């Protein structure tokens, strides 16, 4: 048993921290967000060269076969600098879904090119009324000869406008909330009948609302078994939750540091406000929140690769609850301890607060995951 990083993980962590420190300061990030598509394609190339895109992809498909903990290490570093490149969309969700659901031909065709940074994916799954229910799918795919015809709406599809393919969930059987009857499709983003409305998100990413209007998809673009996608989706989303928690751990780390630095330097009443015990204790609580959330996140990351469904549920939901609570405390207290300056767009703290809040609000918030955890106590 070891609760510390392996040598490889240490190296990965150092090089990703170095990238954030050298190439991803606050001003650079601001410029990147303003670019077309909302991220920097040169950075994406760099990630490919460094092997970061290949990290969780199996070796037989041009990847490095890393574990969930390995990916968590990378994402924690990304979180420290609020990296906006579409790693979650393309790798954590996209490549992982392909890997779980896809057949050998599909995997051979797409995974190596994803690892090289040449193909971008986006997961078109959530719908306007689905809230956190992963099985709430109204979008329909109806078989017509060798094809499926897809009609429906998808919501908050991150990085859709830059994706080459969508991994789209649609109902091939059953009713809106049924677990059975969901199927995944690999849909080229250039298909006719797709109408997209793209927008910035409050945490600096890009997302889209997408209408699929009689979009025709060849049946060879079905991923995995017909009607059985709920299981793949749950598995991949569970992993994504833990990796979001890892990103949050990095963001919390920076948010605490920024706040501690700020109150050490900000003077009022003729002294640094950090000399006041009431603020010191609040800073300590922020630090503790980060430490506990991070410890639980890595534990869940370790559990996820070898657990059955209910074990996974419990580990993931515990980590997501703890992250949500800690992120809220650190974000809110970070702003409060920065005082008026914390309210300004020019100070980084608010941007960390926003990302932490949005990580809570995706794939189930504290309330959702606490209920999920409580079902199996």
């Amino acid at each position, binding site marked *: *048993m070891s609760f510390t990083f392996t040598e490889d993980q240490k190296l990965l962590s150092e090089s990703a921290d170095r990238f954030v420190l050298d190439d991803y300061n606050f001003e650079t990030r601001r410029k990147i967000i303003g670019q077309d598509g909302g991220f920097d394609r040169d950075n994406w190339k760099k990630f490919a060269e460094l092997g970061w895109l290949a990290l969780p992809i199996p070796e037989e498909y041009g990847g490095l076969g890393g574990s969930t903990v390995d990916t968590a290490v990378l994402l924690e570093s990304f979180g420290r600098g609020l990296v906006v490149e579409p790693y979650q969309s393309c790798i954590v969700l996209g490549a992982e879904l392909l890997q779980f659901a896809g057949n050998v031909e599909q995997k051979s065709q797409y995974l190596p090119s994803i690892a090289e940074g040449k193909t971008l994916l986006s997961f078109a799954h959530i719908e306007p009324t689905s809230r956190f229910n992963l099985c709430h799918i109204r979008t329909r795919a109806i078989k017509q000869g060798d094809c499926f015809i897809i009609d429906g709406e998808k919501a908050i599809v991150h990085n859709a406008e830059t994706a080459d393919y969508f991994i789209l969930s649609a109902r091939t059987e059953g009713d809106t909330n049924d677990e059975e009857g969901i199927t995944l499709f690999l849909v080229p983003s250039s298909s006719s009948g797709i109408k997209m409305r793209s927008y910035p998100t409050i945490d600096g990413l890009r997302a889209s609302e997408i209408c699929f209007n009689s979009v025709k998809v060849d049946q060879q673009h079905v991923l995995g078994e017909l009607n059985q996608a709920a299981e793949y989706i749950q598995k991949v989303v569970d992993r994504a939750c833990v990796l979001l928690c890892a990103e949050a751990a990095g963001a919390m780390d920076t948010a605490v540091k920024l706040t501690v630095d700020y109150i*050490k330097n900000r003077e009022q009443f003729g002294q640094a406000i950090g000399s006041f015990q009431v603020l010191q204790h609040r800073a300590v609580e922020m630090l503790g929140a980060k430490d506990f959330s991070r410890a*639980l996140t890595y534990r869940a990351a370790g*559990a996820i690769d070898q657990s059955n469904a209910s074990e996974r549920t419990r580990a993931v939901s515990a980590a997501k609850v703890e992250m949500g609570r800690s992120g809220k405390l650190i974000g809110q207290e970070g702003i409060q301890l920065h005082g008026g300056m914390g309210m300004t767009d020019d100070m980084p703290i608010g941007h960390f607060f926003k990302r932490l809040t949005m990580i809570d609000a995706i794939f189930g918030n504290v309330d959702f995951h606490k209920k999920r955890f409580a079902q199996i*106590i």
Partner: protein
Amino acid sequence: MWLQCVLVAVWGSPDYLRLFKESEVMDLILTPEEEKFRDEVRAFVAENITEDIRKKTMTGFRLDKEDHESWQKKLYEKGWMAPGWPVEYGGTGWSPMQKHIFEEECAAGGAPPVIAFGVTMVAPVIMAFGSDKQKEYYLPRILKSEDWWCQGYSEPGSGSDLASLRTKAVLKGDHYIVNGQKTWTSLAQHANLMFCLVRTSDEGKRQEGISFLLVDMNQPGVTVQPIKTIDGSTEVNNVFLEDVKVPVENRVGEENKGWTYAKYLLGHERTSIAAVGRSKAQIKRLKTIASAEEHNGKALIHDQAFREKIADIEIDLLALESLVLRVLSDESAGKGPGPEASFLKIKGTEVQQGITELLIEAIGNYAHPFIPESMDKGWNEEPIGPEYASSIAPHYFNWRKASIYGGSNEIQKNIIAKAVLGF
């Protein structure tokens, strides 16, 4: 590896009631060797803990001196009395995970907690700073539970500001003459020895005039006076010291260096203060009680709001355990417990207190009856209300102590603020 050390719970059907009754709450994934070790500890605890003691430990009924001593002697015979000690002094040489498993199994099996004052508090100080004679004399006696130690730190005017202590020791020939008062001295009524901080100098910094003495309690001038606490118990005491003679060879280390030794003590075995194993056992008990209690015609455990409160605490406990395992792991890699370990004390006591709150909530009306004798040995009258209820309210009140003792949680935050955040 991370992978071998991750949480699993053992369930698989939607029948919740059956599930938590049969499941070990929040098991860790263990290697086959660790599983073997766990089974060995489990069997040992089962063989050596009587039903009577198990019940007392689980319910918070009073354990008497013999209950503790008989268990500790069994641990000694097995070679398990001091898992944290270096092997040359009688430690076990266990891995961090083994230590964690050991504590968890002892707690789950209802073993009384090992009294910390000797084995985990004074012993490391004697090992690090004591004379050879002190090591040879005291350490084996601690292993065999031949002495009962208490801790003479707090004074009426010196709580969180411990360095202001005024109990005075004056060297006369080969003895110190000690005068003063110690307070909140836990279980001093059982103790024959006290490790004690005394003032030996008023010069310079307050911290630099303190010495660390080992005091024989069975001598004229030592008076132990019980303090009754809000739960009706008398586990803490005032200890009055009037012209108490302490031979100079009973001073640990150098004169006026006692503060350094006391701080060293605080840095030791901080993970056990988190009491993860005890809290797991208490959560299990909480679930059992919550399934026995009725609420709107169904078991309280099926009340969504109550379940979520349990979930809240369990998640805190999982996070706590994860950090404990990390700190243990750092310790075995040679990194001493940093001041971050103060977080374990804070969160550990918050979790413990949180569980006592849910327990009192769970029993509803039967929190009211208060029959202190019912928690004593030999009481065999019919309980008022469910048997499990009688100790819960006293225990809830008693456990408010946890965030105050051992350096209050506020003091722990001061420590982190200074040592980690650099304020």
